[in-house]
């Protein structure tokens, strides 16, 4: 287990560093005069040159990257004009656009994204697993066929289509829900939930389908396994068979998938955030990329990557813990 975690950590570090190199290289060749952007459109060439020097934009790529790494592991100092701003490790640098520390900026955006992800996760897990179990319970009957079609429809609908349709129906026509306007949980929990309901539902509807299908398939497979047969042959009732002996094994891959999905969603559900105007990580990424705000992009990619990698590891561990036959080595 210890070795497994260590190796995982090493792998994750590699992936993250590789990601940052890729992004650095891509943006280095990308057009967009960063110094001019940072300085403002009417800056004189001399001023642009000053800004460029201040941001170390004239340095070769590897030097810039080295500074980035230094910041990441040791922290970096920036001049405020009258003094020095120390950006503590892990320092992802300052945004070209707003001079804000990237770490602070991302931390400020994370709660919205996390709210979106966690709520949607809970909803789609309930919906997906519930639907899956229901269709196993009612297998071979009309209910199962109807559920199969509903899940297929869910899989076929992009989140922005479902979201827009829900806006038309729930916001415009029926006026049941407000147009989402993110309110921090700390500010007003009720409004927080009320405003996020629409995005949650949208995400849950499109995301639940694979879970329903997986739950169903996995349950069917597990119910056919030898050990379930054993307990059936010993007079154990169907309910106990499903609840005690099938569900646990069947849900392991479902939960692992859930971990993966929520992990990647922590990196920003770009579409949902854009559609509903939720000020989260995903929207920030779109914005930063459009404005060649390299430190923010790199920071966000690293954070996103971190969550993906973390989710993968968690998924593996969950699966292994659920299934003791798998040895973590």
């Amino acid at each position, binding site marked *: 287990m210890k070795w497994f975690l260590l190796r995982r950590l090493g792998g994750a570090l590699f992936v993250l560093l590789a990601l940052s190199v890729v992004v650095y290289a891509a943006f280095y060749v990308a*057009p*967009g*005069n960063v110094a*001019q*952007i*940072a*300085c*403002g*459109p*009417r*800056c*004189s*060439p*001399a*001023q*642009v040159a*000053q*800004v460029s*020097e*201040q941001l170390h934009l004239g340095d070769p790529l590897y030097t810039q990257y080295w500074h980035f790494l230094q910041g990441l592991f040791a922290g970096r100092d*920036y*001049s*405020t*004009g*009258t*003094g020095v*701003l120390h950006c503590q490790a892990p320092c992802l640098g300052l945004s070209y*656009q*707003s*001079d*804000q520390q990237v770490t602070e*900026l991302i931390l*400020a955006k994370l709660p919205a994204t996390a709210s979106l992800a966690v709520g949607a996760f809970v909803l789609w897990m309930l919906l997906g697993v519930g639907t899956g179990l229901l269709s196993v319970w009612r297998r071979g009957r009309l209910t199962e066929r109807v559920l199969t079609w509903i899940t297929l429809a869910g899989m076929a609908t992009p989140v922005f289509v479902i979201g827009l349709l829900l806006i038309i129906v729930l916001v415009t026509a029926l006026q049941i829900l*407000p*147009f*989402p*306007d993110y309110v921090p949980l700390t500010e007003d929990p009720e409004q927080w939930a009320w405003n996020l309901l629409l995005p949650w539902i949208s995400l849950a509807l499109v995301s639940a389908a694979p879970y329903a299908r997986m739950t169903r398939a996995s349950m069917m497979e597990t119910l056919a396994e030898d050990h379930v047969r054993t307990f059936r042959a010993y007079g154990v009732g169907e309910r106990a068979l499903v609840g005690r002996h099938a569900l646990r094994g069947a849900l392991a891959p479902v939960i692992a998938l859930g971990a993966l999905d929520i992990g990647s969603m922590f990196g920003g559900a770009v579409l949902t955030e*854009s*559609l*509903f*105007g939720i*000020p989260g990580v995903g929207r920030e990424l*779109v*914005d930063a990329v*459009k*404005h*060649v705000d390299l430190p923010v992009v790199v920071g966000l990619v690293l954070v996103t990557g971190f969550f993906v990698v973390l989710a993968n590891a968690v998924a593996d561990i969950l699966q292994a813990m659920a299934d003791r036959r798998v040895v973590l080595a």
Partner: protein
Amino acid sequence: MRQPSVISRRVAAATAVLVVAAGAAACGPKDNKGGDGSSGAAGKPQKGGTLTVLNSKPQEDFDPARLYTSGGGNVPSLVFRTLTTRNREDGAAGAKVVPDLATDLGTPSKNATVWTYTLKDGLKYEDGTAITSADIKYGIERSFAAELSGGAPYLRDWLIGGADYQGPYKDKKGLDSIETPDAKTIVFHLDKPEGEFPFLATQTQTTPVPRAKDNGTKYEEHPISSGPYKVVKNEGDGERLILERNPHWSASTDEERKAYPDRIDVRSGLDSAVINQRLSASQGADAAAVTTDTNLGPAELAKVTGDKKLAARVGTGHFGYTNYIAFNPKVKPFDDPKVRQAISYAVDRSSVVNAAGGSSLAEPATTFLPDQAAFGHTPYDHFPAGKNGNATKAKELLKEAGHPKGLTVTLTHSNDKDFATSPEIATALQEALKKAGITVKLQGLESNDYSDTVYNLKSEPGFFLGGWGADWPSGGPFFAPIFDGRQIVKSGYNFNSGQLNDAAVNKEIDEINKLTDLDAAAKRWGALDKKVGEQALTVPLFHPVYKRLYGESVKNVVISDWTGVLDISQVAVK
């Protein structure tokens, strides 16, 4: 992604320079101008209450040195007083410049190269200390520091020694061309006559900054207020800004700012759709809400138009801005005036206006200067295209130019969905020119790439969509950067896309700049525009119109032609 607001951070500013910090303008509906000059909820405006401002763009860089505003901006103007400021009145009257910290608009020397200002008595910061002319000098000097870049270029261009000055952090000695003989007097020495200096003095760079409180790039977190409100909370780099009354501000020294609400809560980072949705719902705190940066998009306008109650809560503003086609005559075939004229004839302004959001959001333009007296607007239409373009005339000209079989050209535009230089406009032109036998290929660039490409002499395409806005309502900053031969920038952003370097034009610009009678100057700008228009270096397309919703209990809505947006220093919520 909702329709992006007109403003998207500093970057987009290249095309919408001024719109950026001022927040786009909205003057009272044109047809509604005669009345008492203000609209909004009925009843006498009273002090008190909280005004909510719902914005998409955060008030980042809330530092007077870094702000690029027209007339001191909207939210910034609540905190930062300047030497002069804009007249807070509806419509054309609002396009005038009036004194703020200073007692008058400044005393020019004979040739308008030296400007002297005297401060009013009893001016205080939020901490009760007195405002001195040295603080104004220091504030201006700060704006030269590379750390605090972002402001307009004029101080650098006009002040003697400004081009080389690096700001007070690197250069402790200061800028000699600003003198403060005593605590109340400040004198500016310019390297050439500038009759419009009072306009420049409205920008936040002339806000006093006490040297002792300056902490560089961190100053934006809590800038020291000289205005009616002070910053009590600044979260997320200007995403949430809470302003409360500054007890040391005195209405007796400030004729412009009404400052009715007790508290101003600026919430930004909101999606433009959310802002408009909330304003139209006008629920709870949103009833006392306005926006200073989010227009109604065409789709939203369509919805609002159908609802009388909502329509009554829409402010309409005009702001000096022109969207146009720019030519680079160094690129064939645009070196041939006939080709440029042919295109001028061929454009279908009604399609273009539709693509820009329809006739309520855009007015067709045939002049480069905006349709406002302050700019000295002189009507002309040298190449009458009518409503839908004159393809016949265009074809004739093309034939004369030696292109009897038509032409194939590339039109560069931005990929932003901003209804200005966006693909929709480009496609509308593509369709119109097709009728005149001109095949247009579209080259859409991402916004940064677009600015870098079209505003750079080295990469400037021959045929592209551009836009230009006023730093202040006058011909100077509107006309000169585009047509003054000495403002062709070799490295860096160049806005004289037509690369016009005509001695006569340059000379006339210099002559007008010497005038300190701004009305007289305006007339000459208008005449010059008409003259230069003959060269067909640009094809003016339309002037945008801004529509803004405001909450139900918002009173005293004042929209000047300077900013085009309701002035929150005038708004009352009680």
